[in-house]
């Protein structure tokens, strides 16, 4: 081991001994530090998990969605449009979709009613059958094999046997979902047979999507086209914005913490000040003291960062982020009860590091230096 490394090892040894001696003083700091890391890490991990959920959902969504616009608002899509879309070269298939929202007066919640797509074989429902989301089942006490009973505003009755309840794997989007058959859907909402909510267009080569949208715009001048990447972008900016808001709020906490840390490291106890004086007198240089103190801060940071991040991981993925759910997931009456898929990426850890360890270090540098410049002849006076 060369001298510079050996020197650092001696300094670390000394720091560890000093930390052990002043356990009481440092415990408070580490606890608060860990709490700051925990809150921030939870917010970031949670946002990332939700973002990931959204991307998984998106991956299954069609490349292109076509909506009819009436007076600039979303209207019903005439069935005739589907044929026009299918004629465009490069379009693999067109499927009219039926979905909508339903306000349930029984419990004041909003459901999404939907007719499952043709290729979703495991979710196919025949007339008089339904598949419902786990949140809906819970809030109304429905069970598999039981009956789904809904009454529309105009008094139409929907009665269907519950074929199954969706598992909570992707419950974020499916919690308030009810899948019913097309005839049931049209009757319940009193829809004519030749309209759809919108259409999903499958495209042979994703690279041609811009070209196809261009052609479709000519064919259907009144329609709006939403591509998958449009949705991804909206999602992304929505989630980022919310996450950012949380972090802007956290910034106040970080600032307070930095001030606390600066206070803490400049308010040396008499014992500690005496110790630094002794070290200076017996031959430690200002640089040695600074290095030793930086190790101390580094070890404290490392401990707080690791513990805070691990706790946040446990909080978000094992306890489903109990503390943040209402803020980030939305305000639906039906809180989805589901597990997030564990997911950590380097960019997030790096960001977390910059947002916690960097302010802490910056706040303590000046106090550390002030400590280190103790006059070496102090102990002689």
């Amino acid at each position, binding site marked *: 081991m060369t001298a510079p490394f050996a020197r650092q090892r001696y300094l670390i040894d000394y720091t560890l001994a000093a930390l052990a001696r002043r356990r009481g003083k440092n415990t408070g700091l580490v606890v608060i530090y860990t709490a700051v890391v925990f809150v921030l890490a939870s917010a970031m991990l949670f946002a990332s998990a939700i973002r990931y959920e959204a991307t998984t959902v998106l991956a299954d969504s069609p490349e292109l969605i076509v909506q009819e616009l009436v007076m600039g608002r979303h209207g019903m899509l005439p069935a005739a449009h589907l044929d026009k879309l299918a004629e465009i070269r490069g379009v693999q298939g067109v499927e009219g979709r039926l979905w909508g929202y339903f306000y349930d007066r029984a419990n004041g919640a909003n459901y999404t009613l939907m007719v499952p797509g043709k290729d979703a074989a495991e979710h196919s429902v025949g007339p008089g059958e339904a598949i419902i989301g786990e949140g809906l089942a819970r809030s109304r006490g429905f069970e598999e094999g039981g009956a789904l009973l809904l009454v529309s505003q105009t008094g139409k009755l929907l009665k269907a046997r519950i074929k199954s309840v969706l598992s909570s794997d992707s419950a974020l989007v499916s919690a308030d979902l009810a899948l019913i058959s097309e005839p049931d859907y049209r009757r319940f909402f009193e829809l004519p047979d030749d309209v759809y909510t919108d259409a999903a267009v499958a495209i042979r080569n994703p690279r041609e999507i811009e070209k196809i949208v261009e052609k479709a715009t000519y064919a259907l001048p009144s329609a709006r086209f939403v591509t998958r990447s449009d949705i991804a972008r909206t999602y992304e900016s929505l989630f980022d914005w919310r996450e950012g808001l949380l*972090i802007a709020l956290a910034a106040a906490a970080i600032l307070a913490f930095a001030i606390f840390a600066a206070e803490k490291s400049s308010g040396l106890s008499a014992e500690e000040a005496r110790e630094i004086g002794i070290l200076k007198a017996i031959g430690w240089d200002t640089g040695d003291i600074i290095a030793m103190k930086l190790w101390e801060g580094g070890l404290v940071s490392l401990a707080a960062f690791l513990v805070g991040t691990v706790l946040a991981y446990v909080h978000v993925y094992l306890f489903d982020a109990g503390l943040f759910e209402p803020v980030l997931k939305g305000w639906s009456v039906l809180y989805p009860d589901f597990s997030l898929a564990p997911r950590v990426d380097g*960019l997030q850890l790096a*960001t977390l590091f910059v*947002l916690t360890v960097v*302010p802490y270090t910056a706040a303590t*540098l000046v106090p550390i*230096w002030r400590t280190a410049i103790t006059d070496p002849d102090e102990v002689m006076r």
Partner: protein
Amino acid sequence: MIFQAPILALLLVSALSALTVLWAASFGLRVIRQWDLASGTRAQLELERRTHLVSTLLAFVMAVELFTLVLFVFNADRMAVMFVGAMCAVGTLNVNDWGFPALYLKIAVFFAAALWLIVDMADRLGRDYPMIRFKYGLIVALAPLVVAAGALELAYFLGLKADVITSCCSKLFTPQKAGLAAEMSGFDERGALMLLAGAFAVLLGTAALWWKSGRFAAVYSVASVFLFVAGLTAIVSTVSLYIYEHPNHHCPFCLLKAEYGYYGYLLYVPLFAGTAMGLAPGVLALYGKTESLAGTLPRLMRRLVAGSVALYVAFGIVVVFTIATSRLVLFG
């Protein structure tokens, strides 16, 4: 679009760096005016002790700038989904006019801070602080650079609008376009490798010359800048093709991603570290004749030259290895 965690983190670091360096520069002006080592007054002792603080702070600035340089590129890469036409960091950086200048300035800040730390280290070897005024003059010069880098970054992030249609690496790093990036990727593969080999020859030649004569350290530093440019050109025009195993993909950022096994770090870390060390001897040579540094400064310079040559050679080996093991064959 600044309410995003990584962007807030980057801005925080830039603000901290700018404040630190501005303070250091104002202190630098005081040192330049008042420094008098012969004086035993308290004021002089205070100045001396404050230099410790400045060194620590600048080391901190360099460390966080280096860290956030990587963060900056990674964040740009992850944000690519938000911009039409962007597939990786290049697209995001191209969303407005400030992206690439901000990146270039960040790199410049890193090199400047590294250079300053080496000068500081050299100065501390002398019992009379021989380079103190020069060193603090450098900080005064460094301050505008750091502030400008922070300002560009802020302008860039403020100007990020999700509805902008940008162009990505496949469009930017294509030989048919104009501009620096296109120039670099437009270099024909053989030419770029020849350039790199030439730069290596010049570098090793100047290193040997310096080693023998103890003179022309500045030439070595110029050669290392030349090698840095040649190295980047080679990465963009040729080496990237071998890594992607695709004859037209020139992006210098994608190779930092997990898809390519973080291969880019093998190239960039030695190239950047070698250059940071290679820049210093030319500057240190200004003080080559200082009495209080006799013996210690030449030793430091030898270590720097040897270190940077070793790092460059490591870079060269990675380049050769990449080309040799790739399944892509450009030269039949």
